[in-house]
């Protein structure tokens, strides 16, 4: 390469660097820094972010009112076998819902209780990352991780990607197995994935999610995590809470008071 050209490139490079340095001084919030800030993910930004706090201390053993309400409203079929099973919200023991959390000398009371599990509507959802058709997506106006049942190709990549086992697949036609047909939400077809939708259809009518409305004990609190005055935020402020498998960086929107 020509000596002059090499020199020219060197100087241009230095000039650009210097210019950037000056620019970053003049514009303190340059695009540079916002890019860095977004990777640390401290604030998920504008708009709503629906979330839920589950006070597991109040949850009664053997009660399935929230589960029944959800599954009835959403036409979730009941197949009565683990292979074809479809569930949006269910109860599991402590060690299953919180694998990796304190495994030794857990108090009997904590161990014996069962815990609600549902889609976490992650702020950083691995299922959305995995989906090859955008059939599952995060709504940027309220943070709900939603499904388009008409676009899903049934590859089940999202099921492999979900670290919470929150997704179910319609291995067979669900319609004959729906105990009582609800008009509030469409039924699904064979061959697509489904999961909890945070009752987006009820939220649109100004209603609370079906599980929250059905709970007689006040276990479930629903609200906007981005609103510091919301009931969920006040609960989070006052109580020590857990998110499921927080170490995976998915930033779940469902919190547990143990």
């Amino acid at each position: 390469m020509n000596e002059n050209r090499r020199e020219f490139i060197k100087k241009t490079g230095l000039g650009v660097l210097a210019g950037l340095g000056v620019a970053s001084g003049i514009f303190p919030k340059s695009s540079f820094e916002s890019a860095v800030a977004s990777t640390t993910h401290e604030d998920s930004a504008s708009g709503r972010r629906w979330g839920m706090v589950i006070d597991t201390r109040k949850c009664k053993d053997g009660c399935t009112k929230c589960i029944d309400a959800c599954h009835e409203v959403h036409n979730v079929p009941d197949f009565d076998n683990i292979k074809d099973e479809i569930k949006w919200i269910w109860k599991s023991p402590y060690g299953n819902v919180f694998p990796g959390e304190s495994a030794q000398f857990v108090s009997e009371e904590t161990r014996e209780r069962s815990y609600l599990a549902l889609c976490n509507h992650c702020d950083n959802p691995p299922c959305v990352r995995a989906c090859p058709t955008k059939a599952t997506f995060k709504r940027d106006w309220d943070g709900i991780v939603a499904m388009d049942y008409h676009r899903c190709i049934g590859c089940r990549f999202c099921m492999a990607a979900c670290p919470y086992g929150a997704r179910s697949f319609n291995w067979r036609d669900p319609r004959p197995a729906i105990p009582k047909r609800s008009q509030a939400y469409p039924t699904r077809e064979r061959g697509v994935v489904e999961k909890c939708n945070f009752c987006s259809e009820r939220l649109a009518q100004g209603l609370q999610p079906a599980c929250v409305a059905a709970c007689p004990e006040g276990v479930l609190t629903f609200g906007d995590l981005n609103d510091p005055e919301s009931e969920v935020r006040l609960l989070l402020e006052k109580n020590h809470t857990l998110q499921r498998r927080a170490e995976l960086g998915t930033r779940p929107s469902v919190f547990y008071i143990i």
Partner: protein
Amino acid sequence: MIEKAFNGDRNYWGWIVFLLVIISAGIYSYINQLTTGLTLTGMGRDVSWGVYIAQFTFLVGVAASAVMVVLPYYLHDYKAFGKIVIIGEFLAVTATIMCLLFILVDLGRPDRILNVMLYPTPNSMLFWDATVLTGYLLLNIVSGWTVLGAERKGVQPPKWVKPVIYLSIPWAVSIHTVTAFLYAGLPGRHLWLTAVLAPRFLASAFAAGPAILILVSFILKKTTGFDAGKQAINKLAVIVTYAAIINFFLLGMEFFTAFYSNIPSHMHGLQYLFFGLHGKGQLVPWMRVSMIVGLGSLVVLLIPKLRTSSKWLIMACIGIVVSIWIDKGVGLIIGGFVPSPLEEIVGYMPTLGEVSITFGIWAIGILLLTLLLKIAAAVKTQD
């Protein structure tokens, strides 16, 4: 050239009919699956991928392994591979078609498969996998067919085919890397969440693929008289040996990291596969067979005297293929789902229909390979 595939003896047609019977059974089972749903398979809510995706994973490796003959021959002008390179390319073509078929039969809504291209989603590894596999298929069909066609006419292949062939070399690496990324990027699936998954995929592919190539060459020699040459076979055997060593080395790395760190979630998958977890170890016998057969074959390959004897080499190649097929085609995919995200251990057993569809796709692949190699052998032995 195609007419050469329709000119065979009794045995040839008998073989074709045999494959067609298996294919018909597979199609019948697939129609059942289409009308009733994937509930007819052994898959369920917890083990949501099974033999279909496992075969797909294994076969991507077979497809990628063509690079082990293409690279020495075209890049390093290694003349001894002159006759075998077309077998490698056609093997890649058939393996890739089988991969796409295995993805298709695994879909809940195969009628919507074009959604992958209609709504391209670059953040999904499956989008990239579909893209690179389709590209690889085209590259290999074009280069294999063009070069063979030129040979039939006794002329040099056209110049434009060289860049296509060169492109297929890194492309081969890409298909198996992206396939590993399908699994290696998922949080919470610890058996898969490892940086050596893609390297191990490549190592096992470059062992099993050339081993299949050696076996196919022996079959071709016996049935058509087309001889790939002793030197080529010996060189391939060395490639299989090195790749198998690297594969087992990387597997050892997995064991060290999981068990020395002693992190339960990292150990669970391997424990379930190789020793059983909480008293459940459905796949333990499979994995042990895979280890014993694989390491035994490796010992045979390491001894030059045995490696260069046809009989021992054939046995060792069968052993390596079986071992890696179990490892990738059974253990890795199913093991990734056990224990489940909720630490439950749910078993998986493929159903008869599922197995029939699987055999059907294998038969489609073998039929296609038979036809392609029949053409290739006819062209190569015409003079």
